[in-house]
């Protein structure tokens, strides 16, 4: 699936919920499906700045596609990062770089999360795109 298709799929899923509690419960569920980062990659260097909770992300390139793994010490944050990884993981670096992330507004994530967490979300997206840029440079 393309990034666009995955985003639409997520928007549809979140569209089924009537209130914030259901959204949060779903996000917590998604957090449990997060492809976990290997312990050896949980280093200071791999921590994303700008989040109140700790978020570690690791990226690897396989067959010209970027694979992300991650973890967080907070369960809701884990849900957010799981959504982002579902969108970006397994995609070509150029697709990740060029992807817009308006779907976050559409699923009410940004609107429904506190400002500091939303800033963390911005940092997460930035970090994932940075990895993609680095791998794109290798391909060039």
């Amino acid at each position, binding site marked *: 699936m393309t990034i666009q298709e995955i985003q639409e799929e997520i928007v549809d899923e979140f569209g089924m919920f009537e209130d914030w509690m259901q959204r949060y419960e779903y996000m917590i569920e998604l957090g449990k499906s997060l492809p976990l980062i290997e312990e050896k990659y949980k280093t200071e260097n791999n921590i994303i700045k700008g989040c109140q909770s700790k978020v570690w992300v690791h990226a690897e390139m396989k067959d010209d596609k970027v694979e992300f793994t991650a973890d967080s010490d*907070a369960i809701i*944050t884990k849900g957010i990062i799981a959504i982002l990884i579902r969108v970006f993981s397994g995609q070509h670096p150029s697709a990740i770089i060029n992807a817009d992330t308006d779907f976050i507004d559409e699923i009410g994530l940004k609107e429904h999360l*506190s400002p500091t967490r939303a800033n963390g979300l911005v940092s997460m997206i930035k970090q994932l795109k940075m990895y993609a840029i680095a791998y794109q440079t290798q391909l060039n």
Partner: protein
Amino acid sequence: MVLVFLQKQIAMLDVQKIRQDFPILSRQVNGKPLVYFDNAATSQTPQVVIDAIVDYYSNYNANIHRGVHTLSQEATDAYEIARKKVQKHFNAKHAHEIILTSGTTHSINIVATGFSNLLSKGDEIIVSALEHHSNIVPWQMLCERTGAVLKVIPMNEEGELVMDAYNQLITDKTKLVFTNHISNALGTINPIEEIIKKAHDVGAAVLIDGAQSCPHIKPDVLALDVDFYVASAHKLCGPTGVGLLYGKEEWLNKLPPYQGGGEMIDQVTFEKTTYAGLPHKFEAGTPNICGGIAFGVALDYMNSIGFENIAAYEEELLHYGTQKLLEIQGLKIYGTSKNKTSVISFNLENIHPYDVGSIVDKLGIAVRTGHHCAQPIMDFYKIPGTIRASFSFYNTKEEIDALVEAIKKAQIMLS
């Protein structure tokens, strides 16, 4: 006997009537009535203070201490009356010992910068382990500038300072001691009388950070014999961006000006400038005039309720909140000193404080989560942060019940 005294005090505080003084308390957040338990970060503002701000900008907004016109005179008078109110409230000997600043952090920096010229290599500065970052970083910077050494009074598991260790740290090398009156992260009330006395025995100066104590108790700087006392108006029902530095006259005279600019000068030529006397020496530029005036009104308001009434009522809330929260399984409270104010810092077992904060916000409850600008305390307990509920005299037991229900809900969702 104590109980009888408390009940008598509580009866004198009509919380429902007080709540009507605060317009913000009737608003809703996420469709629920606001429960505001982030008072240690900033207090809410009563209508009389809001009115004073509106009155200033509607009727006598002007620059002070320089104009001969009527508006400037009125604004100057109101500002200087506010300074006298602050003096009276803190029981300073002179009004010019009260420097109106932008807040606690600004006040601390005036002193820390001023001591650059008064310290030498090898001098020692003592801070407590319970400090807010704003009372750690300026002293570290001072040490870097002067070669002085920073020593730390350790804390124990209850979140109290270990006074035996303090007695060991105090030597004739000690030049300055800094501690907060009350810890912002845990609510512990520090034994500042003893700290001040021991420091003075070796000739060291003492700065007390009163940012967290002033909303709960009325400090008497003369009785404390403290050299510097600092606080912020916005924790005392006043506006943000204004606070005070109290300093003994002889100390303030010793410190050089912090900033150059208008108002702080006596004579200026390109060859030499002489500085104005106290308090203007430390008040360069146009101050927060409206904020200063509103600070005075906020003090009047709090004094009209009475600090004894406030302390007694908040103690009641603290006991009720502690008891109710501890009924939740897996909840641990950090900071269990017998001497503490109405701050409860806690965590749920195996749940990140930030997750809990996010859920309870959805239920209309404002609590603080994180390290509370006191990372050394979090490192001591080996935790990423806590959830902190801090109560004020306008909070109620019903609101505490709402918090307890919200925490239980969060626990179920997050387990």
